């Protein structure tokens, strides 16, 4: 047995860009600790969790024993379910006591994005601060959502504590948190646990890629500023060609080595664990058991010529043809973190601009760096981003300005105080998102979205807003809510980006279900970084390519009427030239 952590702390947080292998690394760590005789709980805080699949056991909101491993438990901290439980705690006692219309109105009010976020956070704080659920475990391993969402979760204890402290008039805008306002001690205990190096380790998981390493560095800085100083780096998916002479394999290895050489210095100073690229997906206890071992695992044994595997599919160029024909509209790239949404959105924008069409390229991901991906400015592309902090400040300013005429000094002071509520951020971001959705009536808007969970919360907000608008609208008047535009195929094309691997495909299918529940039908799926669409003779890469071809067949048969495929880019996909080449490849 390999124990990657010589002196593991009670809390272990695994974080990093989506798709870097947080769940595999966290699960393998939990498994090792349990096999060493410890009682271990693995918790996923990702609203789009796939911990069930990786551990091979169906999980819920309470610790579930993992069959076959003494002492190992798993649970999903599902924000939607947390919010449902919270709502039921509030509403349950009044069913049959208050009339049904009153109960329904409470329920509707407790359905917003803020409730969802707060309820999940409250469960999370409970695990850190100590609770009946948490106390029996020697170690609690957190498999977190992609960076942006997780940073927000880790910063909330401080945000709410400060707001409660500073709000002199009894904190009128605690929003949905008011039911929890006596729990401030708990948030402070959670905060203390996070910043105690004896109790908490932050494990930054990354791949040997420049973008993932840069994101790891940003997370390191932000969380160190929050007092989370005990940090460790895991580099997952290191690749060395089995034999010389395969062009793609050589380039992948070279790009990886170069990324590691240029790693930001402070990251280099952290203790580090390297994990080789596996020939097969890490799913199930058996695969997890050998996760930390040095062997890359067996690839294809046969000698095969360098050739693409499987059928060919249309690339981004075909998508560009259709968007260009409309001349306006919204293309939203959605999917789990790390599948390449930013790269695909930027490549499509470059392709359209190359045809002389003006494009508005934007992102809702607080952690995204579209401009980095694009490199130098490209003529015809206007880049914007929805920055939560800037949007919140602008929103506060706007609301105060608008109210100046109708409120006296006291009223304004009260409003200003309430606008300090952390809830305001959700509202401000939603307003900015709405503006972008509407602007696609007149221009081509390519939108890179935040990883799934975060985006679902945004759509949820669009849903509550939609219902509220409809309720308030007079009969016979026309209301156009952002949700209506997102549902209209003539206005919006949702492209689900995924990798052709078991877990990402399952995750994309879940996302598709969620979208359909909101009456949004995805336009197409897009498989990014396809080895099957590249040419290679490397045994490990070929084994992965063959599995991919199967997955793509599965996508077409079960999930998507239209499928686009973009090959693995042997170069780091940044800058207009490389992106346009990617868009042109089919």
């Amino acid at each position, binding site marked *: 047995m390999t124990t990657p952590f010589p002196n593991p702390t009670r809390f272990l947080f695994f974080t990093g860009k989506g798709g870097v292998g947080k769940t595999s690394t966290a699960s393998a760590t939990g498994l090792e600790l349990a096999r060493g005789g410890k009682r271990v709980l693995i918790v996923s805080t990702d609203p789009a969790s796939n911990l069930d699949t990786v551990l091979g056991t169906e999980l819920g909101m309470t610790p579930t024993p993992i069959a076959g491993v003494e002492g190992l438990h798993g649970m999903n901290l599902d924000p939607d379910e947390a919010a449902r439980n919270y709502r039921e705690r509030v509403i349950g006692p009044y069913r049959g006591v208050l009339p049904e219309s009153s109960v329904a109105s409470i329920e509707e*009010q407790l359905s917003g994005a803020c409730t969802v976020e707060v309820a999940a956070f409250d469960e999370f704080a409970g695990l850190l601060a100590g609770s009946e659920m948490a106390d029996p475990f020697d170690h609690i391993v957190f498999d977190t959502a992609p960076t942006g969402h997780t940073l927000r979760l880790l910063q909330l204890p401080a945000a709410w504590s400060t707001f409660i402290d500073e709000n002199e*008039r009894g904190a009128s805008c605690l929003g949905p948190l008011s039911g929890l306002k006596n729990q401030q001690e708990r948030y402070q205990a959670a905060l203390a646990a996070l910043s105690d190096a004896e109790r908490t380790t932050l494990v930054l998981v990354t791949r040997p890629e420049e973008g993932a390493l840069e994101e790891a560095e940003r997370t390191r800085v932000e969380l160190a500023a929050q007092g989370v100083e005990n940090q460790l780096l895991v580099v997952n998916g290191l690749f060395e060609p089995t034999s010389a002479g395969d062009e793609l394999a050589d380039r992948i290895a070279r790009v990886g080595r170069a990324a590691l050489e240029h790693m930001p210095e402070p990251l280099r100073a952290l203790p580090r664990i390297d994990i080789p690229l596996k020939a097969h997906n890490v799913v199930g206890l058996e695969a997890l058991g050998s996760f930390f071992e040095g062997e890359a695992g067996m690839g294809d044994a046969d000698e095969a010529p360098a050739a693409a595997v499987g059928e060919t599919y249309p690339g981004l160029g075909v998508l560009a043809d259709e968007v260009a024909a409309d001349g306006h509209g919204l293309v939203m790239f959605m999917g789990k973190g790390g599948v390449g949404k930013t790269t695909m959105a930027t490549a499509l924008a470059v392709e359209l601009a190359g045809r002389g069409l003006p494009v508005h390229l934007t992102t809702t991901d607080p952690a995204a760096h579209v401009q980095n991906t694009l490199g130098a400015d490209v003529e015809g592309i206007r880049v914007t981003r929805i920055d939560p902090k800037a949007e919140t400040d602008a929103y506060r300013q706007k*609301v105060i300005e608008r109210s100046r005429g109708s409120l006296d000094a006291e009223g304004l002071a009260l409003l200003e105080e309430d606008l300090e509520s952390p809830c305001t951020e959700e509202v401000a971001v939603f307003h900015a998102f709405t503006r972008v959705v509407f602007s696609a009536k007149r221009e081509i808007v390519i939108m890179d979205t935040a990883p799934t969970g975060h985006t679902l919360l945004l759509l949820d907000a669009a849903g509550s807003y939609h219902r509220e608008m409809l309720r308030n609208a007079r009969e016979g008047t026309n209301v156009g809510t952002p949700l209506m535009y997102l549902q209209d195929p003539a206005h919006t094309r949702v492209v689900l980006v995924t990798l052709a691997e078991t877990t990402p495909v399952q995750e994309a299918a879940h996302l598709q279900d969620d979208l359909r529940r909101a009456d949004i039908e995805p336009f197409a799926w897009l498989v990014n970084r396809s080895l099957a669409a590249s040419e290679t003779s490397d045994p490990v890469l070929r084994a992965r390519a063959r599995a991919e071809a199967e997955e793509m067949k599965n996508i077409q048969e079960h999930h998507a009427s239209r499928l686009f495929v973009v090959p693995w880019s042997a170069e780091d996909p940044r800058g207009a030239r490389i992106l346009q080449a990617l868009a042109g490849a089919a």
Partner: protein
Amino acid sequence: MTSTSRQFNVYDPSMCCSTGVCGPEVDTALVRFAADLDWLAKQGASVRRYNLAQEPDAFAREETVRNVLIQEGVGALPLIVMEGEVVSRGRYPTREELNGWAGLGEEV
């Protein structure tokens, strides 16, 4: 300056918070009313505010309020109850009205 010792209970409809800043649009009428209540409290009145979404217990406990909800539905909110009597329903009153009910009898 006269003062009042009357008790006002305000029963709000379900909302995110009493100024509505975390709803889809900020309603300045809500903010103004919050400021008016602040003013009323400064005149000595005892003011309590309940939000249906956050403190349903207050609505269930008070027979007057529960009966209004049963007979008229949530459309009767906001409900202003002074010394146990319903003085206003279905809208937010002005500062002048609050002043009158409180028996302050001065210019506002």
